[in-house]
């Protein structure tokens, strides 16, 4: 095994982990406020198709990412309106959002199948990026990767160091108490849900602009659901979530590079790995009821309707 191979593997891990970091971190904030949005997959797909279309339309990667975030936010708004204003079931509405997102993105993307994109521009610092081994890894990534690296810092700081973060956690822990003290529960949950949508949209854009980079129907291939599982796996903590996402990235390289290392298993079985691992880690975490109960936002999934 050569050094080049290791560098290649690490690059693959980063690429595989980054969309999960975005989507799961957004969902973490949403869930911390007490809202369970099962529509991550649908929001990611909408973001992916919007980002891909925008990058050709606006000819700017940044604008494309913003457009994808907006698209994710819009779908999240739809979800938020249903569950927060109209009090619809969060589970059912989340499923609806996924089904809708799958259909909508397929419809919007029908004319884009088969087009390729050259990928996002990467950082290039004279000398640094050219350094052997670490150069490409540390100083040669695109801006989304750097953003995803900053995200756990930002989210952890927000949740545990700011008053707004404290209020968000409070709303997720007991909406009745938060309401009694005078916090606008519904408005806070709207904000958290929309943030989750924006992040899911960005995660989708990363898939269609960097990971593939092209538009394919259903290209998320369950990553939205894996992001949901990651939030549970991380027991709602941003740093564990970040680590979890990179663990999953690690599994992906197994899948891609197994042949190179000389493992001879049908490709389908290698492709099953991420899904099976997701189930395994979910089981490992969930079996400790105490841990889940101590860490899960107590109000998650429960509708809030202020008594008159």
């Amino acid at each position, binding site marked *: 095994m050569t050094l080049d191979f290791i560098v290649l593997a690490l690059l693959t891990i980063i690429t595989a982990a980054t969309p999960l970091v975005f989507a799961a971190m957004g969902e973490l904030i949403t869930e911390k406020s007490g809202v369970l949005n099962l529509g991550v997959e649908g929001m990611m797909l909408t973001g992916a198709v919007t980002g891909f279309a925008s990058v050709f339309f606006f000819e700017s990667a940044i604008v494309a990412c913003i457009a994808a975030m907006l698209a994710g936010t819009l779908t999240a708004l739809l979800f938020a309106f249903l569950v927060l204003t109209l009090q619809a079931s969060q589970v*059912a509405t989340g499923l609806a959002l996924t089904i809708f*997102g799958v259909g909508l993105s397929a419809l919007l993307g029908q004319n884009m199948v088969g087009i390729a994109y050259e990928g996002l521009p990467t950082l290039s610092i004279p000398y640094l990026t050219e350094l052997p081994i670490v150069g490409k890894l540390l100083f040669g990534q695109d801006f989304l990767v750097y953003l995803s690296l900053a995200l756990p810092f930002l989210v952890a700081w927000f949740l545990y160091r700011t008053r707004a973060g404290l209020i968000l956690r409070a709303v997720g822990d007991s909406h009745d108490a938060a309401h009694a003290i005078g916090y606008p529960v519904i408005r806070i949950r709207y904000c958290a849900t929309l943030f989750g949508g924006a992040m899911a949209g960005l995660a989708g854009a990363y898939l269609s602009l960097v990971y593939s980079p092209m538009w394919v129907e259903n290209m998320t291939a369950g990553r939205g659901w894996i992001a949901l599982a990651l939030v549970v796996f991380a027991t709602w903590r941003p740093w564990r979530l970040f680590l979890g996402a990179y663990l999953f990235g690690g599994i992906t390289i197994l899948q891609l590079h197994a042949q190179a290392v000389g493992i001879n298993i049908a490709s389908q079985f290698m492709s099953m790995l991420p899904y*099976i691992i997701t189930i395994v880690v979910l*089981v490992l975490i*969930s079996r400790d009821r105490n841990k889940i109960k101590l860490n899960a936002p107590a109000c998650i999934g429960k509708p809030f*309707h202020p008594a008159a």
Partner: protein
Amino acid sequence: MIRLERRSESSRAMTYLSPILALVLTLLAGIALFSAMGVSPSAALYTFFVEPVTTVYGLTELGVKATPLILIGVALSIGFRCNVWNIGAEGQLTLGAIFGSAVALYFYEVEGFWLLPLMLVAGIIGGMAWAAIPALLRTRFNSSEILTSLMLTYVATLLLSYLVHGPFRDPDGYNFPESRIFHDSAILPIIFDGSRLHLGFALALLVVVAGWILISRSLIGFQLRVMGNAPAAGNYAGFSQKAMIWLSLMLGGGAAGLAGVIEVSGPIGQLLPQISPGYGFTAIIVAFVGRLHPVGVLFAGLLMALSYLGGENAQINLNLPLAVTGVFQGMLLFLLLACDVLIHYRIRFGKRSAIS
């Protein structure tokens, strides 16, 4: 400002009106969608929702498409009532098809009346086995069946892909990823001459009746409903939550498995890499639109089957993408959930007024 005012008693009328209202709103949204796509809305709606059922053959096709939707929808609605969110019916359907096909291929060219029943039973067992995994993980390890059953759907699809590329591939099939075409004994009998409407449709109707009796008349159905509504009250009454979770998932898995084997031994006639256009997911919509009631599911299943036929028809006649079907289905579920607010709340417009 929109304001919600809780009704003192949930409205029974709205329970039934809500799907109709949602359907009307979906059609309105459809008009907007078609206009935006530059297609005449009236022509599009006609092609989509009327034309497919203007012929007898169209009606029988409706039955063919509705069969898996009704089968799975009835079982899922029973589980949803108990808050067991089995959203992996698509995977269970796939396993049902695999198990059924395995029997058909093992007894290839063997004639016998017993083969078809054996295949159906194998399909049911396959679906149940796949659903048993989330059931076990939920009851034993407290893992969310939503995530596990969905992950298993991806696994099932890959497993099917492996089988049709490998062990189940037709040895005389020029390396196409397909199984042998089933022989006559392994094909469901047609119940309406000149059509593809098969015995499976009759089975689906039977399941509707059985589901109805189970949910509304039996102690087990009562237990399911109590567990879904108020688990603490269920424990207090002495009902077992674990038993209800197992029951829900076994019913869902069994029905989906049956639907899977019916698809391969009915309209398809062999095992292919893709055997369902997402029936397992659409059945979730069917269950909700059918008000989680078996009879409602029957109608909702026919409606969703129509959206599949309409989508295909619109693709042929109007050159519309097949994805429109998915958008319609998603929109209907969204709007239905929105309209359901009227069951528990009255909508009031304007600021809260003083009561004198």
